[in-house]
């Protein structure tokens, strides 16, 4: 192949690959919020993988009256796209008002925010400074339990 055709040929390959990958990725994630796939509930088990040291952490902003308000703004900016406007679950993210999340230690939620669940599509959020991650935890915990209809989350024994 002549060198002058190499660039356009590779550009076409790049765009085709991007389209193909985004198609495949999106179709994997194409689910109705009302009927999440089974593996989505499996994501909650990631909370149990938080190390004991991380689970034992307490929220340093627990008594900060602005933490929930600030956390709400952060949630709308960074999380609502996947988890829904009020954290009840969205196209790509599970319901954060499920009992599994609401009953989890704050340290475990903070650990998930920091580390993400990279192989299941949740990015790491350590790019948000630690106080902002705690503000997010404050907001999420303030929401309370509200299981989604197709995924009734039972309280843990």
């Amino acid at each position, binding site marked *: 192949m002549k*060198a*002058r055709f*190499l*660039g*356009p040929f*590779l*550009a*076409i390959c*790049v*765009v085709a*690959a*991007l*389209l193909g*990958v*985004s*198609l495949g*990725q*999106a*179709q994997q*994630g*194409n689910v109705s919020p009302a009927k999440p796939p089974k593996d989505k509930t499996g994501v909650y088990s990631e909370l149990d993988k938080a190390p004991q040291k991380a689970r034992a952490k307490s929220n340093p*902003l627990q008594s900060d009256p*602005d933490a929930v*308000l*600030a*956390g709400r*703004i*952060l949630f709308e*900016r*960074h999380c609502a*796209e996947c988890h829904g406007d009020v954290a009840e679950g969205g*196209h*790509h993210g599970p319901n954060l008002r499920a009992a599994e999340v609401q009953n989890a230690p704050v340290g475990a939620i903070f650990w998930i925010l*920091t*580390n*993400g*669940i*990279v*192989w*299941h*599509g*949740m*990015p*790491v959020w*350590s*790019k*948000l*400074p*630690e*106080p*902002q991650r705690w*503000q997010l935890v404050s907001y999420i915990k303030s929401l309370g339990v509200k299981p989604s209809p197709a995924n009734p989350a039972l309280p843990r024994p």
Partner: protein
Amino acid sequence: MIPRFFLGLFVLSLLSLVVASPAFSQESPYIVAYDHYMEEPGSLEVEYFSTFGTQRGGNDFHAYWVEFEYGVTAWWTTEFYLDAQSTFHDSTLFTGLRWENRFRPLKHEHFINPVIYIEYEHISGADKILKEIEGHDVESDSADLNAVARQEHNNELELKLLLSSTYKGWNFVENTLAAKNLSNHPWEFGYALGASRPLKLKASAKRCNFCRENVIAGVEMYGGLGDRYSFGLKDTSHYLAPVVAWNLPSDWTLRLSTGFGLNDNSHRFLLRWGLSREFSGFGDLVSHLFGGQR
């Protein structure tokens, strides 16, 4: 063929972006260095950057590029670049394209987080965006007239190891670079270092444009390290650049960098600025266009 193809790509991108949702992003201020954070899965970030450079022994220039950065997964980000430049008292020309991929090999956050970077470049000798400095890149390389420089075509493979740490709001990055011109040229090496921090770590409880947490300031340093046969600092150029990013709640990010050459082989001054916007749900949108469900 190239202009028609890119015109088509540009129109397709614009059409897609009209219906995709903007998303707030927390972008780092670096322009040359990379941290370990990937683009959010399914999101497309469209970025425009400019570099104004002074040139001894030639004409000053304004180089610019457009990036389309897509989060394929939470561990894989891919980017497509289109480069161009205008040299004062000379001409304006398209100078090439790049395709970059970044892979995050580790599942969890660590004190040092590695990312593998692989890039293919198809650029002409007139390319002046200075997105990375490698080998024996020096200021005089950019002094040729465009009509001469554009005759040289480079197909180059570039590998980087990106190391990044976040500690108490600070981000530290250390990038090492190895580049191979696919014709008969030796491996060339380079580096980029950076540190940055938001001006405030806690978020405000009200929506605001000018809140300090929206501004991230830092510094980056980058330069060449010679090639396989002459590794080291001899005949290389180096830059130190304060950087700042302003992440606006209206979904735009502005970046500014003033780079200063650290030795006689470097451009004396590089002024860079950039504007970017992230669109979430781009993957869903493309799927929808091709008949998938949203």
